[in-house]
């Protein structure tokens, strides 16, 4: 059997393992709905999320306002829909940044090896052992509340896992003939790492990214809840819950609907991520 056959066979098996997993489909369906709502928010949302109506404030869910209205008379359903944009964007961009920075660090560290590698890895271990939320909270607090800073803060907390994932295959790949051949032909280190090593692990890094996105979205919501998220008037789920929390005794809908939105989004991402992990994990396949 040639190598290419083994690879395509493996891919097929992974796909079958993923496809036959019912939870994976539930997750994908939920996720598509959420992404759809986020992209087409202006069409899907019944009202303008910032439009205030002092006459209809703090109304419970009704036929007019399915999720009720908040203390400024804004439609909660519309705000939840628009809030998905912030959560998904911050989650996606933070993971993207962490993925690029983390795998770069991992590849360089694995390729260079030696003392450099050991120092880098122990720094990453230290970062891993520090609670994500606290690290994100500290960085966000230091940088100040804004969309960019939030993305940077969350990205920093997620760098370590990517570096670890990228490092291990690099150490194996750098011993392989094709890298040696490239070296013999006088290719620079950057070219070898970027064009020859990275493509060989890109899929693994992306898979890890899909699994960590749930965590990034959870951190975003938590930081917004603490008050370190995207500043108002942008609607974010975490901030909506925090605002609604002031009225929790007489207006439950203010915080319940954004809470459910967070739960469903993270759950959907976890379903998908878990199914991918189950599909890759050789232990679950053997059965």
């Amino acid at each position, binding site marked *: 059997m040639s190598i290419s056959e083994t690879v395509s066979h493996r891919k097929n098996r992974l796909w079958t393992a993923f496809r036959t997993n019912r939870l994976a489909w539930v997750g994908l369906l939920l996720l598509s709905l959420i992404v759809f709502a986020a992209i087409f928010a202006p069409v899907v949302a019944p009202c303008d999320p910032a439009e205030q109506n002092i006459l209809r404030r703090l109304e419970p869910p009704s036929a007019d306002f399915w999720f009720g209205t908040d203390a400024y008379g804004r439609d909660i359903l519309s705000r939840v829909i628009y809030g998905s944009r912030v959560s998904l964007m911050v989650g996606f961009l933070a993971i993207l940044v962490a993925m690029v920075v983390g795998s770069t660090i991992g590849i360089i560290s694995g390729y260079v090896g030696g003392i450099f590698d050991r120092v880098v890895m122990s720094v990453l*271990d*230290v970062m891993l052992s520090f609670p994500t*939320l606290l690290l994100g909270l500290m960085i966000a607090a*230091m*940088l100040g509340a804004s969309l960019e800073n939030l993305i940077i803060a969350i990205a920093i907390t997620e760098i370590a896992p990517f570096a670890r994932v990228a490092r291990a295959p690099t150490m194996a790949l750098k011993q392989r003939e094709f890298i040696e051949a490239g070296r013999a032909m006088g290719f620079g280190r950057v070219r070898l790492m970027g064009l020859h090593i990275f493509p060989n692990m890109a899929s693994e890094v992306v898979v890890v990214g899909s699994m960590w996105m749930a965590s990034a979205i959870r951190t975003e919501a938590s930081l917004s*809840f603490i008050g370190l998220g995207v500043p108002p008037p942008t609607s974010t789920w975490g901030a909506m819950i925090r605002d609604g929390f002031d009225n929790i005794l007489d207006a439950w809908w203010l915080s*319940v609907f954004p809470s459910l939105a967070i*739960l469903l989004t993270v759950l959907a991402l*976890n379903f998908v991520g878990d199914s991918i992990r189950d599909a890759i994990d050789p232990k679950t396949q053997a059965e």
Partner: protein
Amino acid sequence: MTAYVIRRLLLAIPTLLMMLTLIFVLVRLVPGDPAITILGDQATEQALSNLRIELGLDQPIYVQYLDFVIKAVTGDFGRSLFTGRTVFEEVLLVLPYTLELAAASVLLAALLGLPLGIVAALYRNLWPDYMSRVVSMIGLSLPSFVTGILLLLAFAVNLGWLPVISKSTGSLAGHLLSLILPTLTLGITMMALIARVARSSMLTVLNEDYIRTAKAKGVRSARLIRKHALRNAMIPVVTVIGLYFGTLIGNSVLTEIVFSRPGLGKLIVGALNSRDYTMLQGLMVVFAAFVIAVNVITDIAYGFVDPRVKLS
């Protein structure tokens, strides 16, 4: 065993130094002049330079670094810019509340999570397994402030069974009652994690040859599970509890806000809101020390649970 413990303690020193360095760098990343950030841009030049001297910002960077490390190692974590108390005193004031909550949560998580995971493994791919997996998936997906708010609405607001604000009323019963919801909130995620790890580790152990041998020799299944399988399946669970402890403390920030409980989390948010940067830096050091201590304790506990560890 003693040699193992000592070696593990020595290994913690470089980690601690690394963490201190990381915190130092992180705090220096703050854009702009920290003195202006703390006092505001209306402050006089005199006040600014006084504060810079007080914070040691007029010194070269390596002096600041050495000063920071030496002070941190000797237990001087700085002084709050607002209350005037040292970070250490502030932490001691609220630490019992956080520790009480954390301990109760770990206990609850272990008591519920272990049986959940073990039952799931024993009834693999049957309904108890699916139930347990869905429960743990939901538990892992919920950010703790969402759990807290949903529990608060259900049990305190709607049903009125438990107090909304967990303020200690003085009586022991009232105190324990007010601890229930925060403990549930914080414990659910950890319970989910323990259930999941216990399940997979139990499955791995049940496939081992020695279990099959014991079964073939006619060991009764209750005894087989308790004496042979469970002991080995516990090892990863202990590690997970230790590793997750840091996150648990991190999540206590959210739980303490939701239930307006005093604690380390409240302290951090307070420092954040008053832009008390020396306090924040000090609290980070305290947390770092805490996390390292828990990791060391976990490793040592690991040595007790698994005798093979200390040999390597």
